[in-house]
């Protein structure tokens, strides 16, 4: 793929996103209520975590701040994934209604046509994640547990984490080309796995932590890099491995997606 083509696709993507936002603004009330509701959900989720942390303090040798860090990184990675690719998560709608037909007749990659169908601004999630992350990192820097470089490394792992979550979401959605319905699968591969990885994986039995590292690699979003970044365990190579996992995940899921599309069944008209 050459650079000119990439640039023209990015421009097209930008145009489609602007179009979507303009369409959405026709329903301002809907947008405002949706954002407020999301904020409410985020606040209650945060309170839940806060209560758990306050009650139990350290879990299996992980301090309150470290757990807050795991939680925040996961939230922010998910926020990036869902801001740009919410429609990948909601592919079922397109499969059931046959709306993928239109996207397939456009002279651009299907994903590039699908993703800008919705651009979800998620201010509530962003604020919540950002707040907990600042608190956690700030406290750890004051105690000298981590240095300034941790901030840059954190931004990096939030991005690789977003890529990993996107890949998991894309691979799960692709299964919909065979099953049409995917919500229940997503409950497992996306929601349950992500929720589990908000806590240190040492909490879980061996088989489960292996599952969360090697089958559905959510452990690489926050847990594995944190081992090195926060606790100096393993070694700096863990960051390279994390990036490698992200690259492998995205390539594999894109390949799977391209194969899945050939199995698309559309709907009777």
């Amino acid at each position, binding site marked *: 793929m050459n650079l000119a083509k990439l640039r*023209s696709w990015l421009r097209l993507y930008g*145009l489609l996103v602007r*179009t979507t936002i303009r*369409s959405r603004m026709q329903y301002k009330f809907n947008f405002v209520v949706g954002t407020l509701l999301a904020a409410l959900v985020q606040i209650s989720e945060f309170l839940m975590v806060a209560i758990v942390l306050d009650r139990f303090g350290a879990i299996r040798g992980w301090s309150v701040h470290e757990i807050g860090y795991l939680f925040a990184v996961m939230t922010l990675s998910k926020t990036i994934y869902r801001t740009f690719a919410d429609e990948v998560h909601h592919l079922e709608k397109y499969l059931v209604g046959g709306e993928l037909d*239109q996207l*397939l007749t456009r*002279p651009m990659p299907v994903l590039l046509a699908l993703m800008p169908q919705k651009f979800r601004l998620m201010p509530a999630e962003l604020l919540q994640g950002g707040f907990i992350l600042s608190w956690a990192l700030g406290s750890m820097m004051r105690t000298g547990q981590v240095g300034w470089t941790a901030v840059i490394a954190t931004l990096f792992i939030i991005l690789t984490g977003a890529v990993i979550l996107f890949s998991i979401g894309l691979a799960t959605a692709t299964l919909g080309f065979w099953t049409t*319905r995917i919500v*229940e699968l997503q409950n497992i591969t996306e929601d349950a796995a992500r929720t589990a990885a908000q806590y240190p994986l040492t909490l879980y039995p061996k088989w489960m932590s292996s599952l969360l590292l090697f089958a559905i690699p959510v452990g690489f979003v926050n847990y594995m890099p944190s081992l090195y970044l926060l606790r100096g365990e393993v070694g700096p190579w863990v960051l390279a491995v994390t990036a490698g996992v992200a690259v492998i995940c995205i390539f594999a899921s894109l390949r799977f997606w391209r194969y899945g599309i050939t199995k698309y069944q559309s709907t009777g*008209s």
Partner: protein
Amino acid sequence: MMIEAHNLTKDFKTPVVREGRFSGLRTLFSREYRLKEAVRDISFQVERGEFVGYIGPNGAGKSTTIKMLTGILHPTSGEVRVGGVNPHRDRRQAVRQLGVVFGQRSQLWWDLPVKDSYDILAEMYGVSGAEKTQRLDQFAELLDLREFWLTPVRKLSLGQRMRADIAAAMLHDPDLLFLDEPTIGLDVHAKRNIRQFLSQLNRDFGKTILLTTHDMDDIEQLCSRVMVIDQGQLTYDGTIPTLREQIGLPTEIRVKFRGPFRVPEETEVERLPYRVTGIEDDTVVVEANRHEIGTMEIIRALSEWGDIDDVDMAEPAFEEVIRSFSAS
């Protein structure tokens, strides 16, 4: 050659849906499938400049064929070329040279003014500003687009939306246009408008067009060639006169007379385009070919035979005609 379809077959394999808890998951791992052969071993070629009607009963495989030709569905076996390109291997390249209109669904951006959709599509297909303006001026003229230029698509009437959609499909000036039920649900006026435009595209601009329809008039007025599909198989491929000869489209008219009536002699009836097929008590049954004589003309002629009390007409349903045709 604009379209080449070689031995196209499409099977739909739907997993049997499980009931109850975790139905989605159990469906995923289930080995039970329902197999539906939507299209079976279809081959045909369409030359540049042809106007082809693709007809058949509901569920016969019309839409499935169109979706395979446009690269939306991948055939189970067989191969497609549109404008020399395989839409399943090089989808992006293939769709650049074709326009697609689905009667039931819009390509346009639902919440935006019609005009904005054209701007986006122009950008998507790399149509320059000058070309866009020139083509849209032309389409606006021919399709009366200006009256709803700034209206959001969701507020358009069905007829307006269809006009807007056809213009959208032609904006990048493709050589080949596919239309799936473009006149479905439209009133007479809107149908006429759209037929005129399509016929112009074909005649004046040399566009190759393939459309599916349930409206026999679409076929009669537009197509130089008809293909009939039934239960996934091509049962006819040829010209309209030949098809008409084979189908005949006979209408049965039962006329009940009040009081005495006189049926003319055979020799007198011979030159008229209808046949007396039965006389029972006070009722005469006449069969006529609707393409040769209007219903009112028949009734006018019959009223000369006596005092008409009641008229009962049985139109042959299009679907039935096609069915009986395929069976024979």
